[in-house]
């Protein structure tokens, strides 16, 4: 596979702020047309990494290309072909939807500007609100406007920083349908999220904690590589069971899911021993497939041990 098949191909990317390493030697390759999910706790360096990809920040170390352009030297070229949606709504609340889109289209020098703005309004269903001020929109509509604005110059790569935070489930689903349509058309998308259902809709995932890239691959690969064993318990007095389990070695997570408990650990034998110690016939125990959330929390705990 040649280098140009990757929309993002970087190695050793590092950023320090005042002596603190925020992004630590990250290697990342994202194929064209792929939806790549970026996950990790708050403050793990996701936003900083994205800012380096789109030329807002210069990496302290590392090298690579974004859309074939050098991330250290050709930031201006990268900016022309990347759409970046910031975490916080960052369009002008005192401009109307049409004025916002028109402004962005002018900045990118989009050919046939009026036509491009109209098509963009139509495609995201914003046409009948085009005269409304952006500040009066609800969260879901603001997010649509932001998506429309970062697509208006027909970018090859979309960087979305927590685009669905605070958006209702229906709007989120529509947003993801749109993202999949765009990816099918050849657009590459790098998206950060805290929602596990969204993570599972990505082609591939990477998990960051404390500036380090801990794991990557498809959702199945990530779960398989974690080698996490998870049991589900149901029955009475689960609070007592949880308290008893937490005192045992090998039990890393005890999480309540409705009327059941999920109990996970990386060492299957120790976990079995712990369960045997607290098991009583009133409860039903069942081994289940670990979920992404279990895997990520386990990764985060392990990372804290290593880096904190």
């Amino acid at each position: 596979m040649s280098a140009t098949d990757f929309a993002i191909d970087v190695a050793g990317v590092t950023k320090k702020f005042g002596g603190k390493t925020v992004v630590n030697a990250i290697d990342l390759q994202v194929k064209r047309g792929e939806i790549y999910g970026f996950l990790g706790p708050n403050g793990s360096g996701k936003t900083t990494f994205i800012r380096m990809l789109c030329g807002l920040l210069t990496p302290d170390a590392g090298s690579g290309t974004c859309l074939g352009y050098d991330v250290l030297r050709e930031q201006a070229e990268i900016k022309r072909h990347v759409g970046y949606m910031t975490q916080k709504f960052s369009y002008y609340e005192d401009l109307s939807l049409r004025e916002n889109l028109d402004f962005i289209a002018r900045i990118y020098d989009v050919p046939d500007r009026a036509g491009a703005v109209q098509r963009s309004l139509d495609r995201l269903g914003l046409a009948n609100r085009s005269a409304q001020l952006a500040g009066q929109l609800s969260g879901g509509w603001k997010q649509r406007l932001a998506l429309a604005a970062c697509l208006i110059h027909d970018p090859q790569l979309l960087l979305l920083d927590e685009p669905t935070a605070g958006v209702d489930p229906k709007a989120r689903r529509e947003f993801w349908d749109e993202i999949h349509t765009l990816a099918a058309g050849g657009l590459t998308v790098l998206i950060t999220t805290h929602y596990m259902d969204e993570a599972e809709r990505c082609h591939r995932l990477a998990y960051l904690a404390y500036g380090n890239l801990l794991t990557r691959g498809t959702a199945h690969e990530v779960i398989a590589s974690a080698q996490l064993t998870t049991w589900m318990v149901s029955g009475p007095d689960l609070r007592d069971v949880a308290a008893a389990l937490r005192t045992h070695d090998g039990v890393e997570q005890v999480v309540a899911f409705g009327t059941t408990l999920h109990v996970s650990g990386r060492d299957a034998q120790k976990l079995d021993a712990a369960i045997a110690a607290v098991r009583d016939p009133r409860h039903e125990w069942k081994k289940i497939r670990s979920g992404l959330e279990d895997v990520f929390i386990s990764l985060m705990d392990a990372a804290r041990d290593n880096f904190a």
Partner: protein
Amino acid sequence: MTPRRFTFHRLWAIVMKEFIQMRRDRVTFAMMIGIPLMQLMLFGFAINSDPKHLPTAIRAADQGPFARTLVAALRHSDYFSLVREAQTEAEAHNLLQLGEVQFVINIPEDFSRKLLRGEQPTVLIEADATDPAATGPALSAVRAIANSVLDRDLTGSLARLRAKDGPLNFSIHAHYNPENITQYNVVPGLMGVVLTMTMVVITSLAITRERERGTMENLLATPVRPFEVMVGKILPYIAVGYIQVTLILVAARFLFGVPMVGSLPLVYAVSLLFIACNLAMGITFSSLASNQLQAVQMAFFFFLPSILLSGFMFPFRGMPEWAQWIGTCLPNTHFLRIVRGILLKGNGPAEILPEIWPLLAFLVIAMTIGVKRYRQTLD
């Protein structure tokens, strides 16, 4: 306890929270201390409505003993500082035109002779009366000074010359503003004050607002260059500045009847430089301020000396030397002199040149700091 009743602990919670927030915002806190201190210094020490040591030129056609006595007396008075000697009338007028001296005192050729004959010779005092507040006290003092010293010289047989209305006459010629109309001085000066206030505040807000609302990050992720952002933000406000200049000029002409001796295109041309100075200052503030409140406070911190120390409100020459130094660093000081010079004295490009280069220097310094600081906020 019902929740509707006033409780001290809830009140106290709010008070404590306000104090914590106040302490966190260092710049605001510094301003709360700094602005009253500055006002205290400016109003308490710098401002003097009885200006003294005004630069004066002497054109003495008579070098006789009485003339020398008069010159010595003026030199020793607090009001006049004899800085120049003019040989010709043209030279004297040029000094007034340039604003290098406030007064020219002309002692006529036949001064001693007429004095001895009891003919009450006339000493002509020419004053730059663009600012009546600056010249008034000195002019009222001059007669008393002259009479008292000459009376000392006029002893013995000369004592008869001590006429009831004094041994000599003073003829005062108030140039540029013969009727001592304060508006002539204040209205052109307002141009500088209004431009300083609006231009600095507006630009410092314009960029801080983008940062505060988060739209700056978005803007920076587009191909737009920092220089384009800056100039793009400045240009509309230059237009606003020109509207203000025009408003004030129209009002000055038709509402206050301020004479406009010099060239209006020259006023407009110099205004561009002055507006640019203030916009550069605003941008520098906006790169230092982390929120809009701080930006406004910084603008105010700049605005205060710009009205008090620039010669707008109080005569520049009435201030102590340190205050004059601060005033000299402010663009408004120079712009006021230029505008008053053009409108009231009919100054041309050559005469205003000495006030142009300080504006240029200010612009270069403010712009350099602004662009440098602005760049740092990106990475």
